[in-house]
């Protein structure tokens, strides 16, 4: 999918919603997001900074720290070592 973005920094372009489904999963009709895992840390930081600068005027009420957190998460490609499951080490105690 050519999004015009740098490799590995695909922030998700939607292709359409609510289209009738095919007999199988609606692979060709739903949203498509691709994640690649070949981006240098420097390129990611530059992309993050530029994207944050562009978005802040559009989201003036959003906490800058939250925006950083979300953009960092969105920019991070699948396969880059992200953890998201909490583990229960004993009843009522979960660790990340």
């Amino acid at each position: 999918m050519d999004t015009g973005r740098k490799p590995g920094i695909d922030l998700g372009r939607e292709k359409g919603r609510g289209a009738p489904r095919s007999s199988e999963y609606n692979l060709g009709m739903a949203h498509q997001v691709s994640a690649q895992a070949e981006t240098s840390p420097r390129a990611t930081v530059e992309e993050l900074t530029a994207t944050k600068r562009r978005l802040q005027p559009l989201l003036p009420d959003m906490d800058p720290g939250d925006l950083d957190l979300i953009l960092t998460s969105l920019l991070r490609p699948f396969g880059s070592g992200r953890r998201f499951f909490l583990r229960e080490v004993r009843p009522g105690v979960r660790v990340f």
Partner: protein
Amino acid sequence: MSASSDEAFVLEVLAALEQTGLEALVVGSVAAVLQGSPVTTQDLDLLVRDTPANRQKIEMLGHCLGARPREVSSLTNVLRIDAASAPVDLLFDHLPGELSFEALRSRSVVIDLAGRTATVASLEDVILCKEASGRPKDHAQLPILRDTLRVKKALAKP
């Protein structure tokens, strides 16, 4: 870069879904994670279309993931597969918020993950479900999920 055990586990579940042909959508917090939301979770939720064929495939899914599906409690029809990395919960036909399998699938997001295809509930639907669930742990995630959706919409603007 190397994949974490969590990412590897998601790929293992996707491979098992592919192998069994189970009609299922990734829903819940993992669906949100796969769409870029910075949240954590305790399990991987799948919404399954409840048919006799899919019930059989659930047994195969359990075999692929190394554990037999079991009932979570007598008060619910949710099944759980206690996989090594995290529990996989299987929900049937609908989610809170009167979200049917068909409706969720028609709005689903298809994500390519390292060569595997994940069909996941849209972030909008994940939010709707968590709003309707009435559970504090779901409501606690709503602010960051809504903000993630706002950021994604802002990013989509030219």
